[in-house]
């Protein structure tokens, strides 16, 4: 659990109230956070924006002193996964190819944070281009798990989870394409929410797989995650795929309990490969929900829960989109360029040296899946499987309000343990990828620890735009385990 020695107040609301009343100064909180980042070396940050953060803090303090209205995140130190564009602040995607890229614009989610008077501390480490499950695939080195620095944070939003777990930032933003928020939240013992596809604008989120990517919050508590989601959610005319669905008051949902909710346990997510310690912790979370009035039932997700379908479809759809999305990094306009005698050599050398091994692996997989003669066998087939996965979940939500499962078969593994074996690494996401293919929301909320003291998360999944239901249940688990 986070340490209150760093930040005064347990919740974001408490912190902003303190600033509003003058009990705390945003500048002091920001300085404390910046100093704490320097003290705790987890390699969670790629770029720290001390000057920008202090400037923003001063503006908040001036507003507070003048009695001017303050935004809902006033003075809260927040950090961003380095996949979100920040105007004037280097945005690298943890890649050599973008190591010197300074965007001329803010992502929509970032604009909304600034408008809410949040303080942006800097940019967080991650797997390169959000491709990975351990946050080891970074041009800037691996992120270390604050609970055990010899272990991974999970990925790809490892820096986002570690920064919250280590009190380096009060809240953070990450992105989730196949589990990239939920897995590191589970491994680091914090709350991580992947919203419904279209809930948060993707404008300014550097694309990995456009039809799967979604920005979401990391926080020390369910209510804080709800507050952060409320700020960043909502339709954006700059993103055609963002939904025109009203944004509810997510924080108030956290008080509503689970009385009368039906929660399904998919048998496929509790089968072979699931470590007993993880199963034990997850079932402890489920029992809490039952004790608080939820009805638990066993369900089946024959396609969505089947690794041969879900993982395979995910790695075809995601890599196909990635192969096209990453074409723009060609050395011509911005980012890293390897000078060469002719154009083709410049392309080949730039991309060979600029991208890391995992990114190149996925570009090649995706290029292959879209190639003439293979499209029908791979990409088209994967899209058909995707439709079946959506139907699986739709059928489940006819009888359930929520689905509960583990986030990953194991707790955080050792640094380097799975780097040589991509397939083993891919299986870390066995319970999370089908959620992105279906576009539905999911959360990881801490539900216990392994005997070795490693955090374990409970995954709660809802129907599209049912974030409130997820938050209700996650808040109950959190309260009972506190």
């Amino acid at each position: 659990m986070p340490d209150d020695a760093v930040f005064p107040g347990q919740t974001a609301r408490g912190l902003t109230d303190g600033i509003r009343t003058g009990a705390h100064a945003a500048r002091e909180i920001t300085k404390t956070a910046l100093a704490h980042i320097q003290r705790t070396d987890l390699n969670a940050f790629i770029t720290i924006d001390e000057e920008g953060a202090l400037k923003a803090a001063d503006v908040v303090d001036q507003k507070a002193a003048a009695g001017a209205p303050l935004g809902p995140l006033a003075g809260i130190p927040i950090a961003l996964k380095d996949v979100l564009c920040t105007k004037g602040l280097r945005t690298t995607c943890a890649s050599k190819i973008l190591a010197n890229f300074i965007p001329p614009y803010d992502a929509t989610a970032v604009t909304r944070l600034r408008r809410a008077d949040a303080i942006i501390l800097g940019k967080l480490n991650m797997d390169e281009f959000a491709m990975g499950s351990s946050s080891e695939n970074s041009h800037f080195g691996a992120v270390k798990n604050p609970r055990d620095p010899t272990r991974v944070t999970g990925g790809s939003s490892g820096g986002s989870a570690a920064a919250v777990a280590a009190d380096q930032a009060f809240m953070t933003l990450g992105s989730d394409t196949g589990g990239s928020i939920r897995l590191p939240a589970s491994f680091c013992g914090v709350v991580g929410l992947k919203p419904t596809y279209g809930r948060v604008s993707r404008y300014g989120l550097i694309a990995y797989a456009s039809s799967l990517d979604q920005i979401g919050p990391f926080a020390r508590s369910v209510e804080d995650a709800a507050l952060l989601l409320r700020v960043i959610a909502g339709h954006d005319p700059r993103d055609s795929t963002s939904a025109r669905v009203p944004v509810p008051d997510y924080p108030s949902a956290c008080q509503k309990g689970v009385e009368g909710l039906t929660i399904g346990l998919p048998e496929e997510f509790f089968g072979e490969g699931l470590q007993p310690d993880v199963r034990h912790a997850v079932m402890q979370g489920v029992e809490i929900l039952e004790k608080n009035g939820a009805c638990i039932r066993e369900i089946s997700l024959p396609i969505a829960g089947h690794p041969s379908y879900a993982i395979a479809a995910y790695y075809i759809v995601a890599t196909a989109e990635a192969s096209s999305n990453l074409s723009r990094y060609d050395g011509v306009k911005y980012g890293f360029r390897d000078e060469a005698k002719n154009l083709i050599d410049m392309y080949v050398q730039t991309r060979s040296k600029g991208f890391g091994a995992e990114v190149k692996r996925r570009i090649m997989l995706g290029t292959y899946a879209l190639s003439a003669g293979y499209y029908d066998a791979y990409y088209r087939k994967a899209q058909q499987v995707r439709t079946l996965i959506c139907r699986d979940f739709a059928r489940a939500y006819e009888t359930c309000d929520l689905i509960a499962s583990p986030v990953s078969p194991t707790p955080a593994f050792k640094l380097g343990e799975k780097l040589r074996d991509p397939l083993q690494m891919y299986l870390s996401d066995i319970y999370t990828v089908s959620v992105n293919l279906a576009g539905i929301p999911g959360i990881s909320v801490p539900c216990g620890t392994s005997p070795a003291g490693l955090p374990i998360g409970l995954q709660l999944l809802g129907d599209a735009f049912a974030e409130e239901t997820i938050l209700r249940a996650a808040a109950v688990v959190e309260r009972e385990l506190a």
Partner: protein
Amino acid sequence: MTYEPVIGLEVHAQLATTTKIFCGCNAEFGGDPNTHVCPVCLGLPGALPVLNQNVIDLAMRIALAAGCTIQPRSRFLRKNYFYPDLPKGYQISQFQSHEEMPLATGGGIDISTDDSGTKTIPLTRIHMEEDAGKSIHALGESLVDVNRCGVPLIEIVSEPEIATPEEAFHYLTSLHQLLVYTGVSEGDMEKGHMRIDANVSIRPVGETELGTKVEIKNVNSFRNCQRAIASEIQRQIDLRETGGEIEQTTMLYDPDRNVLRAMRTKEESDDYRYFPDPDLVPVVVDRAWVERVQSQIPELPDAKRTRFAKFYGLSADQIEVLTADRDIADYFEATVAAGVQIRQATNWIQGDIMRALNDRKIAIGDLRVSPQHLAELIALIDKGDISTNIARTVFDDMVETGDSPSSIVEQKGLVQISDTGELDGVLDQIIADNPAEVARFKDGDKRLMGFFMGQLMKATRGQANPQKASQLLMKKLGS
């Protein structure tokens, strides 16, 4: 053996929108390099395209004018390839396959040629896409201008049912006229508003199977297209006749030397890895939208020609000139509506107006003479206030200044001298000054009439009413 050519055309036309297809940047031609740009058309990381609804409106307008079927649901796909002037590494386009439909299918373009009379060239499809940028290679350097990236285009694809190079030319002029008439494109060839790819093959007359096709890329004028196709047909016939085989190739046309050169063969052809763009939602068009666009389509060239023949009783040649451009047709109708006789309006527009436009290389929309002023000018001639010759001078002034003819006539004192007393005096003086000519005239040299009239016009600075003056002169010289 005799061969027949089989020709299909793919025309890229720039839509007349003010902004680009997926962002709010200026779509205008020109501008300093890389000034009409933003994160979206620069393809910066994280930027997303949002479809300009006006693009769908314009694409649907030409599709409906050409009788196409509008697809209720179509998608944008990514065409993936690397090139420095393609910032995203893919072009967003529509593509027809067994599962993907473009915005419009079917329809046709009516043409009339001297040889084959009237004919409809059927269309395969009309789809929307974004333009790429421009690469400039000079002094051992390559530079990229991204201004054109994201400029909205439609691609109009014909069926391979064009039989001759001449038909191809007429197809292009008809299509151009339709695009400009409907306001879908400005159709300015010098700004590259229309670019043509031609697919050409030949087969022995009577055979139904298509021969191997050769694609001629990026031709920028209709005459060049006609020439390029003709020269390609001849090349293919020569090859067949000498036992050679036609390879599936892509050619570039060099208009200066009237030759084609091969760009690439089929073996080197790219795999564009088309797939639906996940950043864009499908284009869904309902009936109400189609009806709204349908109601915005102005009278089309064919309908206008028929009406001009019936309503104004004009000849085929006159109709050709007056309806070639919608603005000229409108100008004609406005002139007639201002009270000018049809014959006079036709003569003035075909003559002086067209000359003024050609001399100044301007469109009729830029002409400073309004139909009302032209009607006023013609009325001044009819009333006898000015001669036809003076009218020409006045007209030139009107073109320059945009002033009304009466104010020009008044300012410059150009009103005709019809007053007998005033003309009397001038004529008497001329007779007195030229006794020798008077004597010869009286001896029967009637050609000297011209000499006297010339002297009169000189003395009156062209303002003498010629009819009145010649009557008076005859009387005075006693013939």
